[in-house]
């Protein structure tokens, strides 16, 4: 039976612009990623961690409220911790600019770093869905025959992974900061904690851009999805192992590690040593917690330039891979 050709009608609508098409690619890639239940579980984990940080910051604020449950709880502690908390409260009341900045700065330094392995696991799970799948199903031909250039396709894919990481890393950080400040007893917290927010956003955005670019490069390395996952794990875990085991003897080896590069950025941006010295100076009783303070004092110094060069090298390799591998057969 024939098909009536009258079913075909010309389209008279107006085509959308290039950013709409890039967003369509990003949206479709995100849908594919979201269909993985492990990704959904990890996203939930990120937001639980965000709530934990919010609770900690809420607790710091509540120390200033004499009727609060946390204040009563602190009063039930032993003498020494109670004295430290009282010292912290006095410091916050006297120099809120320094104390809030240091407390939030340290909190965000540690929490953004705890999010880091979570983000790396999420990237591991997304790698096959990014480009590798499109290479194996020859979908690249379809993309390239549409009104999309090579760069448009990659921008769409980049937006997908960057968007996902924003949801599990950037948004929780901003959310925790906002919740911590809004639940504090004074609006001045919003002002005094601004530096911590800017440092967090700067670190997280730079890390996300770096990881997203690397993830795209690794995903484009092979049509076989498992192979790309393995390559990513090797890049991450072997680099980390080399940095830990050989980093002291051969310092350049440390820069083969993604985690080392990100740690260096975090130290450069948050400058935790300054916050620690502020705390130690104003809360001398902290010295009695030798294990904590020694750990703080051992905070490594960072070589920002070396880590930027290493990241630039890796990003360059990734771009070369994307240029050479993402093309129709």
């Amino acid at each position: 039976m024939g098909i009536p050709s009258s079913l075909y009608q010309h389209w008279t609508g107006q085509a959308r612009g290039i950013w709409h098409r890039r967003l369509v690619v990003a949206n479709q890639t995100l849908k594919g990623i979201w269909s993985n239940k492990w990704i959904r579980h990890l996203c939930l984990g990120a937001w639980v961690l965000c709530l934990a940080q919010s609770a900690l910051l809420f607790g710091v604020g509540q120390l200033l409220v004499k009727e609060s449950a946390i204040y009563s709880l602190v009063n039930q502690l032993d003498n020494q911790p109670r004295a430290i908390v009282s010292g912290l409260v006095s410091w916050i009341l006297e120099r809120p600019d320094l104390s809030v900045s240091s407390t939030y700065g340290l909190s965000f330094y540690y929490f953004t770093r705890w999010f880091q392995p979570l983000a790396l696991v999420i990237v591991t799970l997304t790698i096959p869905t990014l480009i590798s799948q499109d290479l194996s199903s020859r979908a690249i031909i379809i993309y390239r025959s549409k009104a999309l250039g090579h760069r448009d396709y990659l921008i769409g894919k980049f937006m997908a992974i960057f968007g996902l990481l924003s949801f599990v890393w950037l948004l929780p950080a901003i959310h925790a900061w906002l919740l911590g400040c809004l639940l504090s007893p004074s609006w001045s917290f919003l002002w005094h904690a601004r530096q911590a927010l800017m440092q967090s956003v700067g670190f997280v955005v730079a890390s996300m851009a770096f990881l997203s670019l690397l993830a795209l490069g690794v995903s484009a390395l092979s049509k076989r999805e498992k192979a790309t996952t393995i390559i990513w794990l090797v890049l991450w875990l072997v680099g980390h192992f080399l940095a830990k085991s050989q980093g002291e003897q051969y310092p350049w080896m440390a820069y083969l590690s993604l985690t080392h590069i990100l740690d260096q950025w975090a130290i450069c941006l948050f400058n935790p040593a300054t916050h620690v010295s502020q705390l130690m100076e104003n809360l001398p009783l902290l010295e009695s917690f030798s294990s904590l303070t020694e750990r703080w004092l051992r905070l490594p110094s960072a070589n920002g330039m070396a880590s930027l060069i290493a990241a630039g090298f890796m990003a360059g390799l990734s771009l070369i891979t994307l240029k050479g591998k993402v093309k129709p057969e």
Partner: protein
Amino acid sequence: MHDSVIQTEGLSQRFGKQIALHEVSVAIPPGAIGLLGPNGAGKSTFMKCLLQLIKPTSGKAWLLGKDIAKAGREIRTRVGYAPEQDCHIPGMVGCEYVTYCAQLSGMPFQEARQRAHEMLDFVGMGQERYRMVDTYSTGMKQRVKLAQAIVHDPEIVFLDEPTNGLDPAGREQILELIRSLWVEHGISVVLSSHLLSDVERICDQIVIIALGSVLMQDRIDRLKAQRQPCTEIITESASEKTIACMQRAGWKATQLPNGHVQVEHDCSHLGPLIAALDADGITPLEMLQSPNQLETLFVQALETSHGHSL
């Protein structure tokens, strides 16, 4: 230049030492265009160069009057392409896939979805549109490839072996749809096929490519008119009598291996042949006017090219 949908000047493509396209210069007006050539002739490379799926080594090309090197993305909003090989976006059912392709061409979602269903109806896809594309038979994949190629209402559509894997009924349907794209809807079609009968049936122009060069390009009716008319006469058992009859009338007649008699004549219609046969009391079972003429042209063009290459 603007009268041509496709124009090239010295278009060449090399893969290492191998020349896939050599100095191709053509100007093809709108219509249903058949791209013919043996395997490895350069047909797909020619299409891919025009669509910028590969970058030509040298030369220039214009599609729909625009330079592909300068306005590639803009051109592709007005062009459709159904590749020969299987290719799909993983993890999608048929209607999602076609909707997504429409969105990639710039359609807003609601319109894309509606149009995707219309195109799937057009290519004869039923409830299969709700199944994953990965599970489709070859025939269904051909239909969905055609749907995604035309979903954004292009001005020209490139179809690379679109009837491969289709059963005879499906092939008939798809060929009829492709024919209607040009005849009824004014969408130029570039059909690459090794089935000469498909090309002859739906195309009004052909481009014959071999060894990376264009051997022949013209309207089919004009090419046929240049050749001496040829008719095949099928009789029950009187082949020799038929040959003698035709030769008496002054035409060259030969017996083909299948027993039919081929007559080369200078008549614009079959009337004089029928009259001559009738005078000798021969009743033909069937008379085929210019059968396999395209095939003959194709073979001649190839022979010429091989002769030159030697």
